[in-house]
């Protein structure tokens, strides 16, 4: 994991003092409400329906057990004892007091954390693959590059007042687990014929009101040019992105208006002025950064033996074998596995954890996974480096703590934004919908039979719950002051990103579980052996689903 040196510490501490002063001047009336807005947003602070919400950056999802304990302390001291993991690998507190936010930031700085640029019209916290560094299909670890981008974008003086928010994601593997096609900039690590590292650059992807899949503007950007090229893209966007309409201000609209070819050409022209300037990366800097992401002290383990022992345990205990199937992922290193702790037991808002649970997870990380934890895009946590021989005892402990619901990747591992219960932008509630669906599908065997299936819920067009890219997507809409839910089918955020198709007219809240059940029925009746939901959907089309769901008297 990256570790601060005195430079990084100083920058974060100076930020805390700056925000303390800004908060004081705001409370004294020297800064207007309107002026304070971007200042607090760039520090992750929203004013929500019920209270402020503070979003804390978890750079590319990596956390240490020490940081988790600090988050637990903050939840207990400044909040109502819980925290919420978001779909962008960040963490949110829902009840802090404005006056205390500078103190929270000071506490975070002690453990090398901050809330810098987690909101507002600036370059946001860069995201990546939760299995970075351990995935068997990895080309190169994306995290050192994420850290380099994080530093470059932190307090970038030219790009703090962009037309709109700006999100960058980096993927280092074959399968895209970072959803780079739906980011303002998506970077795919690639190798040239000569074995040189570089990036395939995508721009203009995004969800929200106008969902778009990004376009490739450069097939191969050699690594030394990463920052100068990003700087060129950002400058073009800062100067020419629309500012007259916030719904048309994302880079995707500019790319579409100009066409990706013209956009690419403008960037290329701008880049000629930046190319080889001092922002060009050096081998020393990349080596320095990579040093923080070296392998932990793995033991030499015979995978065959470990696997045999595991099979024995799995045979003896069915529940354990189910957990192995769903919650344990392969690891690059023989004898190790990655474990997903489910934050989606039925009845708890997806992604919510209490202070006690945070501490318990820190404990598990210390004992089973080199004191590190990762936050995932699907609002779960991962212990990335667990010895196979320890899986059984980890499972027992996780089960007792409530993190072993064996539902990872299934319908009930759903993604859900805070929605109308917390978010002032919401059109509709989303947490109760999630819970109703989880209750309806409580038969684990049936869920396993359905296999991998993503269901994503957003409480409004802003799409924080990524509903466009769920196999089943649910969007809260407002019709004359009443809450309704629109359903979309066929979305995906894997290698082939696809945006869902709207099923038809929207539904009342209490109708949603029935509708989902009918959709699942149509899938089960139509699927070929082992066929995934989206494959069935593309084969049979939306009509059979429509017919069943909207049939009279059904």
């Amino acid at each position, binding site marked *: 994991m990256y570790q601060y040196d005195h430079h990084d510490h*100083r920058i974060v501490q100076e930020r805390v003092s*700056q925000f303390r002063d800004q908060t004081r001047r705001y409370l004294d009336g020297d*800064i207007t409400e309107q002026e304070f807005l971007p200042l607090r947003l760039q520090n992750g602070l929203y004013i929500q329906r019920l209270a402020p919400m503070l979003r804390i950056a978890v750079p590319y999802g990596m956390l240490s057990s020490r940081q988790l304990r600090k988050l637990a302390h903050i939840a207990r001291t400044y909040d109502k004892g819980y925290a919420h993991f978001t779909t962008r690998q960040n963490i949110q507190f829902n009840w802090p007091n404005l006056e205390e936010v500078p103190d929270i930031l000071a506490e975070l700085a002690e453990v090398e954390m901050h809330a810098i640029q987690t909101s507002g*019209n600036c370059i946001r916290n860069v995201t990546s693959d939760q299995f970075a560094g351990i995935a068997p299909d990895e080309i190169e670890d994306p995290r050192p590059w994420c850290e380099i981008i994080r530093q470059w974008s932190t*307090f970038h*003086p*030219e790009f703090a007042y962009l037309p709109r928010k700006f999100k960058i994601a980096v993927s280092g593997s074959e399968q895209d687990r970072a959803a780079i096609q739906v980011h303002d900039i998506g970077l795919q690590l690639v190798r040239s014929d000569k074995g040189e590292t570089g990036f395939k650059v995508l721009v203009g992807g995004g969800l929200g009101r106008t969902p778009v899949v990004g376009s490739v503007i450069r097939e191969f950007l050699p690594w030394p040019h990463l*920052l100068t090229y990003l700087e060129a893209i950002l*400058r073009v966007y800062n100067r020419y992105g629309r500012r007259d309409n916030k719904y048309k201000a994302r880079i995707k609209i500019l790319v579409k208006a100009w066409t990706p070819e013209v956009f690419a050409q403008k960037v290329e022209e701008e880049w000629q002025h930046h190319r080889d300037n001092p922002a060009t990366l*050096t081998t020393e800097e990349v080596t320095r950064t990579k040093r923080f992401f070296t392998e932990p002290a793995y033991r030499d383990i015979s995978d065959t033996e470990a696997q045999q022992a595991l099979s024995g345990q799995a045979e003896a205990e069915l529940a354990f074998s189910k957990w192995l199937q769903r919650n344990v992922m392969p690891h690059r290193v023989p004898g190790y596995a990655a474990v997903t702790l489910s934050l989606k037991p039925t009845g708890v808002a997806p992604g919510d954890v209490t202070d006690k649970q945070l501490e318990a997870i820190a404990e598990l990380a210390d004992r089973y996974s080199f004191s590190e934890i990762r936050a995932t895009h699907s609002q779960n946590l991962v212990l990335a480096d667990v010895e196979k021989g320890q899986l059984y005892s980890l499972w027992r402990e996780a089960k007792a703590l409530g993190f072993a619901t064996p539902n990872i990747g299934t319908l009930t591992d759903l993604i859900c934004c805070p929605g109308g219960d917390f978010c002032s932008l919401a059109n509709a509630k989303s947490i109760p919908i999630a819970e109703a669906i989880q209750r309806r599908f409580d038969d684990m065997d049936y869920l396993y039979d359905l296999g991998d299936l993503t269901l994503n819920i957003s409480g409004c067009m802003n799409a924080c719950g990524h509903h466009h890219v769920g196999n089943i997507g649910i969007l809260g809409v407002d019709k004359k002051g009443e809450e309704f839910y629109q359903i979309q089918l066929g979305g995906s955020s894997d290698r082939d990103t696809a945006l869902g198709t709207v099923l038809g007219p929207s539904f009342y809240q209490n109708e949603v579980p029935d509708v989902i059940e009918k959709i699942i029925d149509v899938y089960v009746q139509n699927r070929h052996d082992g066929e995934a939901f989206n494959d069935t959907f593309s084969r049979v089309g939306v009509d059979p689903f429509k017919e069943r769901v909207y049939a009279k008297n059904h």
Partner: protein
Amino acid sequence: MPKIIKGNAIIDNDWQFVARDSDLPESGNLLVHFSQWLNAPSADGRALAPWIDSEDEFEAQAERLIKAPLIAVHFPTFMDGRGFSTARLLRERYGFTGELRAIGYVIQDQLFFLKRCGFDAYDLREGTDLENALRSLNDFTLTYQGATDSALPLFRQRG
């Protein structure tokens, strides 16, 4: 007389802003839109300097503009960040060395970024306590990325 920050000091603002396409006052130091200034860079009994709006395409005229002793960049609102790019272009690409002044709706909490992008004079939003605002020029003593003030990113300086 209204005050501005220039460099690290508070001074009188002796330049008057003239809106686009309006008649020039009879006397004084006047900031006129750059399209007007290019047509008539001087006027009897008055000193003129150009201002550029956030949406203006000025590059084709940059070579002439940089001969002005002062260029003002207008921020219609503090949320409009185009002026930051304009300033860097004027300084870094076109080599402007005169006074570069941020005008319009700019706030104290932008001073550090404005300074980094090459501004050296700041006409802050009315009602700002300028004495207090001076501190914000130095909100940070260290930066990760290069900019107009210093091209070297931190990674070329880390020991």
